């Protein structure tokens, strides 16, 4: 089994009135596809965001620990944040900014509204690539390669998100997600808003690209079939208790 | 803070002149409209121009004798129809050039040039024939006819030929704000004031180094400025502010003889006012005593009242004032109503009807009068209202007054409240003569009465002072009955100067004639 990228232990997040997630624990490994599944409202997105240290509910994080072993197995990033409320979570957000978009990246759902309408795909890719440790010697060529990898024509680099179709936007979003050569890609229901055929294609592509780039994939999804087909590990969120399931 | 060049130079000059002489700041009623004597419009213009220019002849402020600073001697020539003038040597223009006979003749030619759009010139065209230079310092000024007092007729300010390209002098020339004269001060007109710097000359040696004119504003500000020595003088102190100043021992209130009187011109060629009876009724309806009390704050029987009633177009101190004609001090409603009914007006529901319609008077007033007599417009309106006349009242800006009212173009009004100011020569031809040719230039409602024209003719033709007097006494009597104007009062003019300003003799009308003698020491 490859090295663990994220070790979440007993994640508990509270909103003013109720508990949103309680005692969720799991590990995400590099080079594998981990699916985060559960009924809507089970806190899938919340958990994914927690993995990225983006917590914006009050009081928010009250229990649990988060480790990125590939970076430093001894650091618990939630240290001093638990029960610290908004301010502590804000500090965490600032402290971990350098990780987001580098160590792990995010591929949103309904990409056409998730991409900055004021930046061309090319610019967004450039910014993403800039997060790499070692910049490519030919930026143009690199962008072209990534675009090809997600099945987009080079001209897409000059296009603004508003000028792309839903499917193309989704591919672009994926391209932007993998461009920084992250250890882990977190994809939030990438198939949403796409027709069945396109949906399948996009997910396959997602898995394929992550494999090619040697990145782990944390896939948030409520489509059982998708999950069965592609997931190596499954994290089942049942409203309250979560556990890491066995191999598919 | 950037200021206009005039003020800049003023600032520098005052620095440069420290020690050599003092600088005085004073408030005028308004800014001079122009410093070009040919286009003098207001009293402020005349006063300011007196600082910059020399009039060929002028009246001494104390002895009242006819004098000249730039004429050394003169002879009557051509059997009294011309005057040979020998100029005072050494007189310099503010541009450094010397005064010569050319300048005298240029001024005369400018006055006679049809291209010079000046009402003043209009007047001189009736009197002057022409001018010839005889050498550098002698000029021969010719008249249209023989005058018994030719020098009296030559009161115009002399202009420098060198500053003009032609004898057609127009109001838009830079000369209007940066004039060149031979007077005691070199003047420049700025945006918020005018600045006058002393100019030593053979015939002038002003003790003051600089005079700065600022536009007057809220009376209380003037008073405060003066008492706090922010300013040294106020040329025209509004009556309401006089008590506060006379209470201060740092300030001296000085009365000066400005022959100016207030009137309400009646539109004699419109509606009921065309009827003499109606005009007489209005004259009786006005309670001058009340008006004076409310607007100027004078109680009846006030000993040193700044305001004396008049019954005709002259101030009571004038030789032309006809004391036989009584003034209406209090309203007499009964007689007024009787006259109105005789004139065919009828009263219904408290208001007068004329030819079946309610009578509404459109009343206008020269806006600047409000400073001297607060809300007089309202007061007069109220009195007419009580008398049973509806009204619509409007103030008229000074410039519109000059442009439309005095030119007889404001016929939409029925009553116009105004004020005339005169020098020693109280010639009312312009006000009351039928408007034609050069006559009746200031005839507000184009009033025309052959009898009046006749009398005015007599005055013009008069060869002796008594003849002139008789004519004007007759005129006074006629106007007091025919009433093209309701004559109100003479409001005496008071200046306030700080006591450090000494020897400041104020000349009637032109005010600054004796400025050379003024002194200022802290």
């Amino acid at each position, binding site marked *: 089994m490859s090295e663990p990228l994220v070790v979440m232990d007993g994640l508990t997040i509270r909103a003013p009135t109720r508990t949103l997630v309680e005692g969720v624990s799991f590990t995400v490994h590099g080079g594998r596809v981990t699916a985060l599944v559960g009924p809507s409202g089970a806190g899938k997105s919340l958990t994914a965001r927690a993995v990225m240290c983006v917590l914006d509910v009050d009081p928010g994080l009250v229990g649990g620990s988060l480790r990125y072993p590939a970076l430093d197995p001894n650091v618990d990033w939630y240290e001093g944040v638990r029960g610290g409320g908004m301010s502590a979570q804000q500090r965490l957000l600032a402290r971990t900014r350098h990780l987001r978009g580098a160590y792990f990246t995010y591929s949103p759902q309904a990409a056409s509204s998730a991409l900055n309408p004021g930046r061309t795909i090319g610019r967004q890719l450039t910014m993403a690539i800039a997060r790499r440790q070692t910049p490519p010697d030919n930026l143009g060529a690199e962008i072209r390669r990534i675009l090809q990898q997600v099945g987009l024509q080079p001209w897409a680099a000059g296009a603004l998100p508003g000028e792309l179709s839903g499917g193309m936007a989704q591919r672009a979003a994926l391209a932007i997600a993998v461009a920084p050569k992250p250890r882990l890609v977190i994809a939030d229901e990438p198939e949403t808003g796409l027709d069945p055929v396109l949906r399948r294609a996009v997910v396959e592509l997602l898995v394929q690209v992550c494999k090619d780039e040697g990145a782990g994939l944390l896939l948030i999804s409520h489509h059982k079939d998708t999950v069965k087909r592609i997931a190596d590990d499954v994290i089942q969120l049942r409203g309250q208790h979560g556990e890491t399931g066995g191999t598919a | 803070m950037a200021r206009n060049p005039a003020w800049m130079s003023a600032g520098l000059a005052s620095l440069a002149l420290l020690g050599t002489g003092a600088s005085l700041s004073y408030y005028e009623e308004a800014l001079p409209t122009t410093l070009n004597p040919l286009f003098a419009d207001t009293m402020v213009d005349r006063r300011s121009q007196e600082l910059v220019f020399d009039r060929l002849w002028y009246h001494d402020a104390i002895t009242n004798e006819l004098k000249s600073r730039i004429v050394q001697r003169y002879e009557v020539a051509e059997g009294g129809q011309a005057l040979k003038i020998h100029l005072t040597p050494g007189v310099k223009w503010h541009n450094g050039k010397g005064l010569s006979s050319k300048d005298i003749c240029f001024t005369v030619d400018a006055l006679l040039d049809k291209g010079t759009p000046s009402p003043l010139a209009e007047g001189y065209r009736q009197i002057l024939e022409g001018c010839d230079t005889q050498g550098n310092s002698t000029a021969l000024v010719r008249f249209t006819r023989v005058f018994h007092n030719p020098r009296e007729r030559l009161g115009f300010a002399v202009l420098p030929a060198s500053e003009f390209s032609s004898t057609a002098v127009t109001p838009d020339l830079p000369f209007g704000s940066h004039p060149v004269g031979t007077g005691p001060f070199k003047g420049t007109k700025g945006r918020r004031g005018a600045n006058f710097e002393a100019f030593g000359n053979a015939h002038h040696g002003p003790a003051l180094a600089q005079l700065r004119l600022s536009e007057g*504003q*809220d009376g*209380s*500000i003037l008073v*405060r400025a003066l008492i706090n020595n922010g300013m040294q003088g106020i040329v025209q102190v509004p009556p309401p502010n006089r008590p506060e100043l006379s209470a201060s021992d740092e300030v001296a209130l000085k009365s000066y003889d400005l022959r100016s009187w207030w009137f309400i011109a009646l539109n004699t060629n419109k509606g009921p006012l065309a009827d003499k009876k109606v005009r007489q009724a209005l004259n009786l309806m006005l309670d001058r005593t009340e008006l004076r*009390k*409310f607007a100027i*704050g004078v109680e009846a029987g006030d000993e040193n009242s700044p305001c004396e009633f008049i019954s005709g177009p002259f101030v009571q101190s004038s030789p032309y004032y006809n004391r036989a004609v009584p003034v209406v001090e209090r309203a007499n409603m009964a007689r007024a109503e009787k006259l109105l009914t005789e004139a065919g007006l009828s009263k219904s529901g408290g208001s007068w009807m004329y030819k079946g319609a309610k009578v509404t008077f459109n009343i206008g007033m020269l*806006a*600047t009068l*409000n*400073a001297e007599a*607060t*809300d007089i*417009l*309202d*007061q007069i*309106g*109220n009195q007419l*209202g009580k008398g049973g006349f509806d*009204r*619509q*009242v*409007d*103030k*008229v*800006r000074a410039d519109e007054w000059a442009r439309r009212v005095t030119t007889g173009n404001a016929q*939409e009004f029925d009553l116009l409240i105004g004020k005339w100011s005169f020098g020693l020569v109280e010639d009312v031809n312009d006000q009351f003569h039928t408007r034609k040719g050069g006559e009746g230039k200031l005839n507000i409602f184009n009033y025309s009465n052959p009898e009046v024209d006749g009398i005015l003719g007599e005055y013009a033709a008069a060869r002796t002072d008594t003849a002139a007097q008789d004519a004007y006494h007759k005129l006074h009597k006629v106007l007091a009955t025919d009433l093209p104007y309701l004559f109100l009062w003479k409001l005496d003019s008071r200046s306030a100067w700080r006591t450090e300003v000494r020897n400041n003799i104020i000349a009637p009308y032109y005010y600054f004639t004796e400025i050379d003698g003024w002194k200022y020491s802290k």
Partner: protein
Amino acid sequence: MTGRWPAIGVSAVLFAALIVLAVIAPEFLSEANLDLKEFGPAAVPPFGADDRGRPLWELAAQGARVVALPSVVAGLVVGLFAAAGGLIRSMDLRWADSAVAAFGEVVGALPRMVVILIVALLLPRDWRGLFPLAATWALLSAPGAMDEAAAVAERLGGARFVEALRAHGYSSWRIFVVHVVAFNLRPVIVRQAAEVTMQVVFLEISLSYLATSNDDPSFTHPDSVRSWADILHLGYRALAFDAPYMHALVLGLGLVALVAGTTIGISRAARAR
């Protein structure tokens, strides 16, 4: 303020107060009475006397009459313009939209006060009054109002919103007048109208003050009538030379506050649900 009724109540009362003031205004000020001059509210209720001993309420009322009609009319005009702007956008009339835009570019590009000043000073005597100036102001404010209303309609979904309603089989009247204007554009239209009304009142005060303070004839009303500016001028003298007219200053500021309060109230009332 979230509740609708309090806002409506307050603004209605304030507005009524202004109108009543305007209605009861005397045509001419009463006789001067120098014995009463400088007297405060105690001596001359309710507001005290002016420098001629005339009750200040007369000045206040006359001032209200001067501004009441023109300012309200200007407000209504701008309201109509705003509604038009919103409708044009939701009807998806491209040409009209771009025409409005072009109009707005030119009109919106000029400093309003400069335009007003020029108009005010060039008007012939018999045209003089607040109405032409208020009209000019309304015209100058129109493009902005239309633009904002259009933006709201845009956010509403513009033409798509209308299509959706058509699908419900609503009549055009019901769609445009009821749903678009009354339900959705109401807040912005009312706010724009109220604000322009207020601006015109303040414009009158400004112009009259500039005139009064140096004895010039007024641009906005016959000189037998007084404006709120005259009250404020007394107040100025109270401030500057501690002349005994503090009560005038209070009244003047109070009237300004009254107008501002009405504007806020009305806008809030329109916004609240």
